[in-house]
């Protein structure tokens, strides 16, 4: 099963914000977490994560800073902001509503 591209795009904000709500992280680790959470079903092209992160950063939902990673390279870490948490709560309500509605209909059939 592969998930529709639009759905992947639509869920990206909620997923990235939810992962960052667990703790600060960086691109590669975020992607790894997405794979883990979806059991490998939710496949993103790796590079596409970064424009999403930059969009969130521009809307001040996350903030970033460069730090030295263990490998010695500079790495860009992202952290969710308060506005990001508010947005995440909002996204969560929306997804739960959709989920509930679909659940109700499919329970009967």
């Amino acid at each position, binding site marked *: 099963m592969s998930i529709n591209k639009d759905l992947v795009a639509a869920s990206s904000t909620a997923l990235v914000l939810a992962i960052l709500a667990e703790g600060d992280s960086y691109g590669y680790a975020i992607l790894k977490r997405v794979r883990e959470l979806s059991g490998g079903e939710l496949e993103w092209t790796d590079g596409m994560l970064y424009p999403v992160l930059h969009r969130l950063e521009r809307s001040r939902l996350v903030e970033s800073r*460069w730090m030295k990673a263990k490998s010695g390279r500079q790495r860009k870490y992202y952290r969710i902001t308060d506005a990001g948490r508010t947005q995440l709560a909002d996204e969560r309500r929306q997804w739960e509503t959709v989920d509930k509605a679909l659940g109700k209909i499919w329970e009967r059939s």
Partner: protein
Amino acid sequence: MEQKRTDNPAADSLERQIEAWRAHLRKSPTITRQDAAELEDHLREQIASLGADGLSNDEAFLVAVKRMGAIDALTREFAREHSDRLWKQLVLSGDEGAGSAESPAAGLSRKLLVALGLAVAAAMAIKVPALFGIGFDQHRAFYVLNASFFALPFIAAYFAWDRPLPRSGRLLVAAVFAAAVVLVNAFPFPAPDGDHVPHTLVLTALHLPIALWLAVGIAYVGGRWRGSERRMDFIRFTGELFIYYVLIGLGGGVLMAMSVAIFEAIGVKMEPYLENWILPCGAVGAAMVASWLVEAKKSVIENMAPVLTRIFTPLFTLLLIAFITTMVGTGRRIDAEREVLIAFDLLLVVVFGLLLYSISARDAQQPPGLFDGIQLTLIGAALVVDVVALWAIGTRISSFGSTPNRVAALGENIVLLANLAGSAIIYAGFLRGRQAFSRLCGWQMFYLYVFAAWAAVVAFVFPLIFGFA
């Protein structure tokens, strides 16, 4: 798993592959150095993880790049998010810097400070004579004559500092300016009565900056005047400076009109302040600021002069062909009025400018194309029109008498005509594959001396010949 440090060939080739991938990525203007660094970090982590699973470096690289996505798709996605980056911006503060130690911003802001300092110095310099009783209102002739000296030496000084110009060059440029300043002020021009200013004085004032511009050029190329490539850089600089100066001037005009309008509302007359302070100080200060701006932006923003020549070369070609056709079709003659020579001088200046700035932007290696044909047609048409005009005037020039203005206008016409005729011959040779395009550049760069020499003759010799009339 060993990281980078290994010096086995496999690790080296991996480094090279990553290097090539990053270089390819950086070609897109929408991906900044920081973005590339972030993506590279991702790629390396992916490769390390795949390597830990038992893949070789090459395999790991291929898989990691594939997972990252096609670079085209990636840059398109970045472009959607950062469309502003497609518009090249002149970044004056320069906050590019994560991970990279070198910062061009420091150098840039130091240059900005020096340029601003010189602009302020120029603005103050133009008010210094007033301290000695030489005011704008009573001594207009003085300011007309000396206008060049309040702007050009400061621009020359900036480049002498920036390049830097060797000591011998500095002395030469300083000597040229000093000699010019002494000479023109020692000329016994008669005191202007009322609004009448001696013609030779106006001619000197008009030609002085052209002659002295060569001295600015020496400072601009850092004394390495030989080799037409550096002189061509100076020509490019001159064209952009002209355009930026006009733009700044337009902005300044709006600023002054606004200040008059809003101060009028509270009953304060701004005109005297504008005429005595803002206008002169702004005009000389802006020349310095524009010079700095052109240098700062040269690799960031497209050059405007070649763009304008692309637009106007075909249009002027059409204009001249229409003019010739009309002249032949209707049998009308050029009316040899006194001012007609000036009009044809200006026409030649425009055609020369179009030629010069299309040369400045043309890749000399390219084979002749359609635009070259249009260019040659334009030069040819201009030559025909000008020769016809000269013929019409020449038959009557003796009856007009040889005033300094007329001799200067005629001389200008001949100087430009010779330039365009030479250009046409070389251009035709180039189109037929007999000449290299660089010959044309060489011809124009040689001609800079002719222009400067002619301007110097008008500025310094004409007053003597015509008795300062």
